[in-house]
């Protein structure tokens, strides 16, 4: 076991079980989020998932249009790939760190919307929502804070023994 691996190795089965639950919950959530952003709308009159996410991002008024068009795909694919790695336990720390970085960026964007008193919706989970309904509010910041906790735990403690690899 390398020095790094020793540092992040969990102490017992209980901790590994907690890490497994965190990994599965976060992976499931971000896979669901990515699916909703990438998958086409179930109706012929509604715009596709990427189109809806692009317009949701555009309404934040933080990125130029050409970057919005690119990020409408890169963000969900980033979520999907990192979540899939988290699910099977390969490079779990790196995946969790990437998701945490994205979550931090989303939260900063939400904070900027709140600061500018804009009345827009998030589009964070496509057509669905977790805890916060309607236009962006401080509820979204709290929601992201709650989501960050298991990610922080995985970054700090690694994937646990129930994973394909314990390497970060």
């Amino acid at each position, binding site marked *: 076991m390398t020095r790094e691996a020793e540092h992040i190795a969990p102490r017992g089965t209980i901790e590994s079980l907690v890490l497994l639950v965190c990994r599965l919950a976060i992976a499931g959530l971000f896979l669901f989020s990515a699916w909703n952003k990438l998958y086409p709308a179930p109706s012929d009159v*509604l715009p596709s998932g990427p189109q809806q996410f692009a*317009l949701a991002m*555009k309404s934040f008024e933080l990125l130029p249009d050409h970057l919005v068009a690119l990020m409408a795909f*890169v963000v969900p694919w*980033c979520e999907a790939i990192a979540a899939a790695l988290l699910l099977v336990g390969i490079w779990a720390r790196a995946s969790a760190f990437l998701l945490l970085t994205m979550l931090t960026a989303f939260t900063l964007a939400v904070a900027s919307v709140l600061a500018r008193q804009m009345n827009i919706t998030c589009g964070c989970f496509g057509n*669905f929502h977790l805890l916060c309904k309607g236009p962006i509010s401080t509820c979204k910041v709290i929601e992201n804070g709650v989501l960050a906790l298991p990610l922080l735990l995985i970054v700090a403690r690694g994937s646990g023994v129930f994973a394909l690899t314990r390497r970060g």
Partner: protein
Amino acid sequence: MAFLGRVLLIAFVALLVGAWDSARRPVQTAARPVAPATSTTPASSTQTQGQTPSPTTETSPATAGAATPSATPAAATLGKDITVAQAKTLFDAGATFVDARSDAEWASGHIPLAVHLSGEMFSATDGRATDVLRQLDPGAATVIYCGGGDCHASEQVYIYLQQAGFSQLHILTDGVPGWTAAGLPWEKAGTP
């Protein structure tokens, strides 16, 4: 360093896949100008379904809802962004008016016979946007409005409607403030 390398590698793979997917099925991020009309299409005769003015209507225009075939020819000469006067002409001709503001703003009052269709409704799972879209005629002159000024809700709904096949779209750039300041018909709260 290995840890950071893994993070960057995952991000790079996502960037490559995302860029490929983006090129495969591009999204629309800006409103395209309206296409010139090639035929005379009567203004939407379905715009008022479920949107009957309530008894609390402050001003009932005699022409409201009087759909005439002249709506589209008038709209065909207009660009994407229109003034209050141009919007009034389309209003008199029976064009469809779409209120892109939030539920609360819509509930507090709106242009008579307008339909409510906000960006929030498109990103909800309750099917309200689909229900409204199915009531509207994609070929009819359609005016979208929101809070005016720096309000971007109109442009968002404009893009959504373009994606849904609407061809005669216009944005009332001065929005509600311009409309009400001109003393034009306004319906107070009462209609859901």
